[in-house]
């Protein structure tokens, strides 16, 4: 009996010690490591400029979801598409053609898109421009963003629709700002750009530009979350994006990006984009 009683006491002590050890263990005491996600933004502006615009967006979305969300981009559309294909990002802000070409196939699901529509704008100098209408572009040089940019695709489609395919010299530059500078420097008669970068450029460097033509509108760039992102977090991101226009902090972020508001996005909206891309690739409109 005495042996049994001593054994029970020893067992109790071991249990208490084990409990204390568990309580004192780092696993119990340390705060859980914050989940780390990556926001990838397609390189429609220089990376550092994109950082200025989207790092605050990443912070706001990360704080909303209680996660750490870093901003990343790539040096080119091609590399960005490669990163999409490699599923390097958890949340992306991607142009519509890349969405249909790479993001959607890689498992990214639409969350929200810019409220407006995306169209390619053909822009010349407001004064002293060598051409005043799209038809006058024949034989002139037109600057465009990288060939894979949505605007470039839309712009080339527009030129083809107007019978200018192969009649103008197209030159692709690194980003929208570079295109605009070509026009201002008279090294290109016109440039193809989008409304958002044009607005940002005008805000930073002033006017001096005139839009002479606009392509068919398509659903614009969108935020899409990868399927691996927990649904709760993706919902929080979506809710935040859709509500930014309702708060001052949100509006400040939207103003920085050059957007008015985000609206819900779904994959079906981008069928028109898929159609344009299919037509573009099948008929090789350049």
């Amino acid at each position, binding site marked *: 009996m005495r042996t049994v009683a001593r054994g029970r006491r020893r067992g109790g002590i071991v249990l208490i010690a084990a409990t204390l050890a568990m309580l004192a263990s780092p696993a119990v005491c340390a705060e859980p490591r914050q989940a780390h996600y990556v*926001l990838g933004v397609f*390189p429609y502006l*220089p*990376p*550092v400029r*994109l*950082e200025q615009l989207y*790092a*605050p967006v*990443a*912070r706001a979305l*990360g704080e909303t979801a209680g996660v*750490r*969300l*870093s*901003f*990343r*981009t*790539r*040096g080119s559309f091609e*590399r960005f598409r490669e*990163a999409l294909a490699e599923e*390097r990002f958890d949340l992306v802000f991607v142009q519509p053609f890349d969405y249909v070409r790479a993001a959607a196939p890689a498992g990214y699901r639409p969350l929200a898109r810019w409220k407006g529509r995306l169209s390619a704008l053909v822009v010349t100098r407001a004064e002293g421009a060598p051409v005043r209408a799209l038809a006058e572009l024949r034989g002139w040089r037109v600057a465009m963003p990288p060939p894979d940019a949505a605007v470039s695709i839309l712009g080339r489609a527009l030129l083809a629709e107007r019978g200018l395919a192969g009649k103008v010299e197209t030159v692709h530059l690194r980003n929208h700002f570079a295109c605009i500078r070509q026009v201002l420097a008279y090294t290109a008669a016109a440039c193809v750009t989008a409304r958002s970068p044009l607005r940002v450029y005008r805000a930073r460097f002033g006017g001096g530009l005139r839009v002479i033509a606009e392509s068919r509108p398509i659903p614009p760039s969108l935020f899409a979350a990868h399927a691996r992102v927990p649904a709760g977090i993706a919902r929080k991101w979506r809710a935040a994006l859709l509500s930014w226009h309702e708060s001052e902090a949100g509006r400040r972020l939207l103003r920085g990006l050059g957007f008015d508001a985000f609206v819900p996005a779904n994959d079906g909206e981008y069928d028109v984009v898929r159609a344009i891309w299919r037509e573009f690739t099948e008929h090789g409109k350049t």
Partner: protein
Amino acid sequence: MKLLPRSLRYRIAATIFALEAVVLTVVIWQTTGFVREATERQIEEMERVTLQILRGPAREALLTEEYDRFQPYIERLLRDPHVVRAVLADGEGRVVAANDARLVGGILPSLEAGEGSYWRAERLANAAGPLGTLAVEFSSAPLARIHAQARNLGIGIGLSGMAVIAVVGVTFGMLLTRRLERVAAAAQAMSRGERGRRSGVRGDDEVGALGAAFDHMAERLEADRRALEEARTALEARVRARTAELERTNRELEGFVSAVSHDLRAPLRAVQGFGEALMEDHAAELSPEARKYLERMHAAAERMGQLIEDLLLLSRVSRSQLERTRVDLSRMAEEVIEELRTAEPGRAVETHIAPGIEAEADPRLLRVVLENLLRNAWKFTRGREPARIELTLEIERGEPCVSVRDNGAGFDPRYAHKLFQPFQRLHSAQEFEGSGIGLSTVQRIVHMHGGRAWAEGREGEGARFCFTLGPRALRLRARPEGEGGD
């Protein structure tokens, strides 16, 4: 120990050298310090600029995760020998680009300064959080080399400057002191008696002014000396002329006195002789009143005879040549006292002559002095019971003097100064006989010996006459072994 010669030139040079050494040290220290600080700031600025140049590409590489585009920047950076390593790490601390391929993929190395190198690092971040770390390891060698160059340059400049200053200081000191030495040499020559020596130093500076002033002073001194010499020569000539005149006058006067005395003695002897003959041969025929007149005439003739004798003595004394020899003054005084006792055996006079007094003096003249003083004491103690006369050797104002003290009639001290004048008497001839020439004779003899004589006394309380005979002329003879005191 004297570290430097006492010459002014070396002192000037040493002072200039020391001052300049201090100033140079401070200036060079400050300058090299400033150069070092400026260089350090420049290097630091260069490092900062390096990091600043790398910051953009590094940020872009971190944002795009395209690290291969950043690699050329790092490799280009290493062309600078100042750079040892360059590393770019992502937000997780993982090296994503480095000049050393072994570091890529590893953990960012410790950024603490190592042996001969140190790190400059910049944490890159944006609103969304940390992006990564750009770190460049710089070699300390260029900074150390610049420090060494600055130090060596400072030491070189300092030593060169101090050498130049030393040469300039010594040269300047020589230039300055060479002229001063000429003034000093002239002064030393003048002190040796070369009165015609001049410095000849001229110029507009202080040394020139000193030389000119010295020469002017020497000229003035020489002129004054010549004037003084001429004045002294003229004075001496005048003194000689006056002395000769005085001597001639004295001789004439003494000759006159001697002649008069001699000439007076003959008729006086006739008066005395005929008076005595009248008294001896015709006394009975004379009335008592006539005899009384005759006696008074005889006494007067006696006094006149004594007066003539004393004048002759004074005259002889004045003309006599001083011949000093050692004289036993105590014995001579004893002899005089003995003569006085013999002359007046009826008088009871207590005398005390201190024994052993010796004098370096003319014995004949000293005898005259003692006779006069002791005879005076003998005379003026007449009527005193007991009469007392003492002769001692005393010290007055550190000088030995012979003192003759008595308890006689004394004198009124107000007239003490008259005692040594000829024919001056403080007592009537009826009271105390005398010619009034004795003390004058005493004083003349004492003066001839280079001494002095003086008198002290009070009326009715005795007198004290003292005299000296010049330096070391009076002393007390050492007593022979076994001779007892009184």
